[in-house]
């Protein structure tokens, strides 16, 4: 597990004020500043810094992919040789239909898979076609794979830090 430098107290106030969303008003960072008790200039400077450091991945809208018609969500899991996983990760992550792509630990013997790619399609047939494209890209490094479809969302609250 990777662990970065912890954020400081003022960053933390900004995170608390924005983690459920930016205020919908013409000057949202000014509203965040009022809530965090610092100036708007400082909010903006710190948010720009967090964007540069990667603490903020991006700022924008997150569509609900179900509402856009992407109803088949397949977590594809692959057993690939450890020495090739980085090379394959770069290639598979670059595919425009893959939304997340990770190397994760195996749990042998129950779980042989060390490479995960999330694939979204309008139906399972489309997901299966997309998985064939990933398989073609992985080629003979594919020592086995499966598609795990989500059948129910049990909880979805997003990431939160405590106040």
């Amino acid at each position, binding site marked *: *597990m*990777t*662990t*970065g*430098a912890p*954020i400081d107290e003022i960053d933390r106030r900004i995170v608390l004020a924005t*983690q*459920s*969303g*930016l205020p*919908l*008003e*013409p*000057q*949202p*960072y000014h509203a965040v500043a009022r809530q965090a008790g610092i100036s708007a200039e400082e909010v903006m400077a710190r948010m720009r810094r*967090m964007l540069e*450091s*990667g*603490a*903020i991945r*991006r*700022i*924008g*809208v997150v*569509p*609900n992919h179900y*509402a*856009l*018609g*992407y109803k088949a969500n397949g*977590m594809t899991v692959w057993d690939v040789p450890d020495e090739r996983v980085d090379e394959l990760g*770069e290639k598979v*992550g*670059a595919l425009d239909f*893959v*939304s*997340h792509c*990770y*190397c*994760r*630990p195996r*749990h042998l013997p129950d*779980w042989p898979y*060390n490479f*995960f790619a999330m694939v979204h399609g309008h139906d399972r047939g489309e997901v299966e076609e997309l998985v064939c494209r990933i398989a073609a890209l992985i080629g003979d490094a594919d020592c086995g794979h499966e598609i*795990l*479809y*989500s*059948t*129910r969302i*049990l*909880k*979805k*609250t*997003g*990431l*939160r*830090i*405590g106040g």
Partner: protein
Amino acid sequence: MDKPGQMDELDRAIINELQGGFPVCDRPFAEVTARLHTTEQELVSRIDRMLKDGVLSRFGPMYHAERMGGSLSLAAMKIPDSDFERVAGIVNAMPEVAHNYARDHALSMWFVLATETPQEHAAALERIERETGYPVYDMPKVKEYFIGLRFAA
């Protein structure tokens, strides 16, 4: 919310253009209106409406938990159907569990654990195992690969 056809051209343009790169400046909505061919007020109210309708699940900064010192992990459990609801109740009740999905596999429950420290992560795993009676397969990411995906509306 199941009818993407209800979105008009401007809604689609907002979704396609604003999945990243929302500016950090005094009047950020005003700054992006030119390329979206709309007004500041219209853009604010469109985003508000799409959030209320469930077309958007969020608007704002997406934080990277690990880069802020936090701990994030995907974990799975093998739960028989007969015990699934009880275990889902225990797992969902934990504030550290951000997402939880049922999947069609022997490893049938998959959840994301988000904590502010690695110690809290270990404690949460231990508590889930103790309260549910099932082992947790913890799968923290070893590496994350660059992703280009933006959902097309």
